[in-house]
């Protein structure tokens, strides 16, 4: 096996064979400490963080503050099928984001995150040579993914109501190479599938009481236009030759569906903040299929809690945020009538840095994905995440010189 195949894998953000479907698996990337509490936060309002789930929350960022958020992920996955177990390890950039709120009434955010990730290495696929009793072996390697650049704008309409709008540009390429070997010949196909498209979203947060906030979000369907660059090389009777080198070939577009979410956030229990979220993505309507997989409506339930012993405590440990969360995701893929469900258990810490609101967020997630059934596989992933969330108050006139 040549080394370049593995080299391709090292740059991936996932090692999941499920990423062979569609545009890959949904990224585990996240901002701030959200991955510590089950990726909930539709109704969450933080003064010094960029809420990736609801653009309306940006209006609640502390007045005149500037936020910067950068994160890294590392994943250790154990893949299990009926007979084998394999580890996959990946690590990479999670996000970079900027946020700003000038006057406590409107805030903006600018976020770059991976939206989907592709990283599969399928070695030794056996297929029939039609018209003969023989088979051929191929290795298929996929990499790449879709990135999202999102611009959020949140506005406080009145004291209790925030509205937000998000505009995202989705772009990226999914590369797949297939290497077929026969006794005296081979075929190498490199396909670069380039996708891009826009997606608009809306957000709302409403403070029911001082301690209860309601949130709602929606995202409109987005069609990602796809084109393909393809390079085909063969070796025939040991003679290597270029079969094809084409650019901008037509391929099917990919549609992200309409989705909406509702959430509740409460600080009713003194120093505990509790989030409950529900997301629904209407994949059925996109009518998309992929090989043996079919896209189906997806629901995600999440609950997360955050405890700060004493927010303005003088002791360092009193200001640490302790987070815990859980989410259940029905998955958007049905293979052989079985949904690829996902359970996620989160633990996280927010460690304050200095006197301001800057924080290092560390989280650990245990993710159970899929099921060992028929051809399906189970993935147990340990996800480690570090996010640096820097917060600085600008335009603050110094009292003393």
């Amino acid at each position, binding site marked *: 096996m040549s080394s370049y195949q593995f080299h391709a*894998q*090292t740059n991936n953000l996932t090692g*999941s*064979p*499920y990423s*062979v479907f569609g545009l890959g698996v949904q990224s585990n990337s996240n901002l701030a400490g959200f991955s510590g509490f089950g990726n909930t936060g539709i109704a969450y309002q933080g003064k010094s963080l960029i809420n990736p789930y609801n653009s309306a929350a940006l209006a609640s960022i502390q007045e005149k503050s500037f936020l910067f958020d950068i994160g*890294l992920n*590392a994943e*250790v996955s154990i*893949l*299990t*099928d009926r007979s*084998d177990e*394999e*580890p996959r*390890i990946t*690590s990479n950039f999670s996000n970079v984001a900027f946020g700003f709120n000038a006057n406590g009434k409107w805030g903006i955010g600018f976020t770059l995150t991976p939206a989907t990730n592709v990283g*599969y290495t*399928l*070695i*030794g*696929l056996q*297929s*029939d*040579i*039609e*018209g*003969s009793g*023989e088979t*051929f072996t*191929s290795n*298929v390697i996929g990499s790449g993914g879709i990135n999202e650049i999102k611009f959020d704008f949140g506005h406080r309409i009145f004291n209790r109501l925030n509205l937000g709008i998000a505009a995202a540009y989705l772009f990226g390429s999914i590369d797949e190479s297939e290497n*077929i070997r*026969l*006794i*005296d*010949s*081979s*075929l190498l196909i490199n396909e670069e599938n380039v996708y891009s498209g826009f997606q608009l979203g809306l957000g709302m947060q409403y403070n029911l009481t001082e301690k209860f906030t309601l949130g709602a979000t929606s995202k409109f369907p987005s069609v990602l236009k796809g084109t393909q660059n*393809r390079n085909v090389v*063969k070796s*025939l*009777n*040991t*003679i290597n*030759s270029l*079969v*094809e080198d084409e650019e901008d*070939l037509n391929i099917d577009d990919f549609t992200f569906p309409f989705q909406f979410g509702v959430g509740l956030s409460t600080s009713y229990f003194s120093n505990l903040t509790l989030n409950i979220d529900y997301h629904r993505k209407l994949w059925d309507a996109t009518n998309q299929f992929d*090989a043996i*997989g079919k896209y189906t409506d997806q629901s995600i339930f999440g609950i997360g809690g955050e405890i700060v012993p004493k927010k303005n405590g003088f002791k360092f440990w009193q200001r640490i945020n302790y987070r815990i969360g859980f989410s259940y995701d029905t998955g958007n893929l049905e*293979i052989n009538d079985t949904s690829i469900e996902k359970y996620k258990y989160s633990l996280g810490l927010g460690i304050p*840095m*200095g006197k301001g609101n800057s924080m*290092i967020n560390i989280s650990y997630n245990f993710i159970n994905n899929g099921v060992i059934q028929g*051809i399906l*596989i189970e993935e147990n992933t340990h996800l*480690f995440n*570090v996010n*640096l969330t820097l917060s600085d108050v600008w335009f603050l006139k110094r009292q003393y010189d």
Partner: protein
Amino acid sequence: MKLFFYLLVAVFLVGSCNQDENQVPTLEIGNEFTDSNVRIIAIDTFEVALSTFKFDSIITSNPERLLVGQYVDTTFGKVSASSYFEMLSLSYSIESEAVLDSVALILGYDNYFYSDTTQTATLQVHRLLDDVKPDDQFFFNSTEIEFEPFPLSVKTYQPEPIDEDSLHVTLPLSFGENLFNAIRDGDINNDEELLQEFKGFMIKGGENDNASVIGYSPEGSETFLRFFYTVMGEFGDEEFIFDFNINGTLGIRNAFNNISSDFTSTGFEGLVDQEIEIQSEDAGNKAYMQSGVGLATKVTFPSIKRITDIPGTGTVISATLQLHPPRGYYSNLLPIRDSLSINIANQNNDFIGPLLINDQPVFGIINTEGTEFNEEFYEIPVGAYVDAKLSELFEVDDSILIYPVQYSESLDRMVLNGENNSNFAAKLILIYAIYDE
């Protein structure tokens, strides 16, 4: 802040260490999620047209082998091979007291034979009346040089090409003395003077032989005209030898093989011109070849370009031509060889060059394994040819030209099944990969 950067560095390090562990040898989980994106189809239904034609002539100059003999074949008719060659000496001095005892033509077997060596054969040695010089640049299998009609010597013998080293043909003493004495007496001092007296030999099988064709080596150490002589001295007689060899200047021997064939009452009577072909359908669904004589098999794939009718975008990744030599047309006496020479011919059936793969000539290799009834067949990798055919901008009327190896220096014959045989038919097996449907 410092803490953060340490963490950052740590994560990167963890990340980069772990990346090595990606190189786990088994990556098979999830393999069932997807099939290959490529459909690979084996197709053996494209037409394979075989025909037989005869080269007007084959160059037989400077042979590696002298072919002599004659056999009659039920399929191919009567085949005769004769060799013409010039013989010279390395020196032209013999002691004046020398006396010739005998002279003989020693022909060294080179192990090649075809047809029945148990049959008694005749070998006739004729003196040439003209120089062994080509009219043009080359000698051909059809070239003839005038020779004395009455043979200098006729030997009836049982060829032993494997068990014996050489064949000894005694020549008349008078013939030997003429040359020997002239050299001894200083009348012949060099090649030119020898060639005035002695132009060379033509050796052939008997007119009515039905025996075998035997290969003799033209090497000076194997084949020579040997003069055995005695020098009378004070202390008794001493015996010596003096040789002529089939020498040539700059390693090119003035020698060639004439190979003729009598196609009377065979299927090849009509092959009077190179451009005339007999399709396999008109020849018992068979194609024929015979080295030396110049019979060759031509193969074309008339419908190959229809492969583009297969829906989707694809490419040929393997093409193998399978040719079966039918049982009953070869035997221990009339063997087939392990390989076939594969070449390209133009529309006039002229030889263009060998079929090459990476500058190396392609051969058809016999496959004796895995076949039911142990039926042998030749496998010829024709991928490069098919690929070129499919990508040619203009229709090129070329073809694959097949004949036995050592084509100009043997008398092998072979029959191949055409494509219309119910069993063991000629087949083109294409492996076609569709990568975009």
